[in-house]
Each structure stands twice: as C-alpha cells, then as structure tokens.
C-alpha cells in the first residue's frame, strides 16, 4: 500500500497535481453557490426597498 502512495518516487508531483485539481473542482462549485446566494440577497434587498417606497 505504501508503495502505491509512493508513485514510483513521483509522489511529490502526482499527489499535488491531483490535490490541486480536486481543490479546483470543489472551489468552483462553492464560488458559484456563493454568487447565487449574493444575487438572491441583493434581489431581496431591492424588492424590500421597492416595497418600502
């Protein structure tokens, strides 16, 4: 098992590549969800100010 993780001596190159890419995939989803939340919050504020006036 430890020989698997060693990647024939290339562990220092293979695992950071995989880790970075997985982080990229997760980050892009979180980023898009954050944008959606912000857009809804801003629209709610706009509606509230329309209703108030």
């Amino acid at each position, binding site marked *: 098992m430890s020989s698997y993780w060693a990647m024939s001596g290339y562990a220092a190159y*293979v695992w950071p*590549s*995989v880790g970075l890419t997985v982080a990229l995939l997760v980050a*892009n989803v979180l980023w*898009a969800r954050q944008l*959606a939340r912000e857009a809804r919050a*801003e629209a709610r504020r706009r509606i509230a100010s329309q209703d108030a006036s």
Partner: protein
Amino acid sequence: MNWVWFHRFGSPPYFYSVAGRIVPWLAWPAALLMVAGLYGGLVLAPPDYQQSDAARIMYVHVPAAYVGLMAYVVMAVAAAIGLVWRLKVSHAVAAACAPIGASFTAVCLVTGMLWGQPMWGTWWAWDPRLVSMLVLLFFFLGYLGLRGAIDDTARADRASAVLAVVGVVNVPIVHFSVIWWNSLHQGPSLLRKGGPAMPASMWVPLVLMIFGFTFYFYAVMLMRARAEVMRRERGGQWVREVLNATGDKP
C-alpha cells in the same frame, strides 16, 4: 425550421428556470464520471513504460486543459451571439465562462509544471504549447479585468465581448502548436491517426475524466450564469416571483 425554442433562451426568466432544472442532470453524471475516471487512472491503469507513475498526472492535466479551451470557445461564441443579437442572457453566459476557464487554465499550467519538472527537468520552458496556453490565461484575465474596469454592464458586455471574440484565434494555435512547431510538449496521443497511443486501460479513464469535466463545466457555468442573470434583473417582477416561490432554498 422553427427557431422559437432557441429564442426563448434569450428570455431571462425562461433561462433561469430551465438552467436550474438542467444543473442536477449535469452535476451527477459529472461526479460519477470523475470518480470512475480518477479510480481508473490513479489505481487501475498501468504505469507508463517510459514515464512510470508520473504519467498519471495526465488524468488531471489533460481534462483541465480541455476545460480551459472549451470554456474559451463557449465564452467567445456566447459573446459573439450577445454582440450580434444583443442578448443579455448570452453576455451573462460569456461572463460565467471566464472565471472557470481562467482557473482551469491556471491549474493546467501548474499541473504541467509538476509533470515537466520530473520528465523534462524543468518547471517551465518558452515552448509553443506552454506559451500559447499562458496566452489563453491572459485572454481570460484580460476579459475579467476589462469587465471589472467598466461599471456600466451593457458597455462592459460589449467591450469584453470584442476581446473574447478576438482572442479565439489563440485556441487553434494552442491545439496545433505541438504539430506546427517543434515542441517539447508531446503531440496528440488520444485523437490521432491510428487510434490512441496507449492501451484502453489508460485511455478509457482519460476519456471518462474528459467527459466528467465537460459535464462539470456546463453545470458550474449554468450555476454562475443563473446568478448573473438574477443580479442583472434584480428589479424585475419575475425575480420577485422566483424568490417568493423558492423561499430561502438555493
């Protein structure tokens, strides 16, 4: 030919609703394909006969490069449609592509460096493929910078769309750079004459990853484009109806 179905996507509420229904149908296949592709590529596939286990970087580097290029093409096409037909939804789609494309292009470059150091003995070379990919990143960043610098959304849309369309000439340069010039980077090894330059145990996981990344790109792009459409239409009646109907749900 009836184009009404297509024109309806120019309507923000229709786009918002249909895109929202499509996202899960893209996200789940993307997750399954990527899990299968990573397992196949990192565990089941044999080590390369020349590069040993370092070749497994391919399973993340190639799909990242693919998404970077695809994001650029989708961005340029959406920007061009936005310019010609003045469709706001189209500009929102273009704007949604850029941050995703930029981040995947950056990760492609970094994973390429992590592959280049052990295989070529250098992190970076001023090589046609590497430089044209760096130029792709600069086009994304220029597009985002230009949008950020113009406050008026309609003017930002038009100016950035022109940049996006001009930059599309770089896409075939990236693709053919390894053929036209003598590059350090290896040539096409999947879609080439005579079939893939590797056994099925190696190319099948790569194809799964490429399809998984493609589904993923369209899912995240539609999520961003929906948020962008709502941001632009925040004063509209349909936004009020959507927010009333969904409550606090995402």
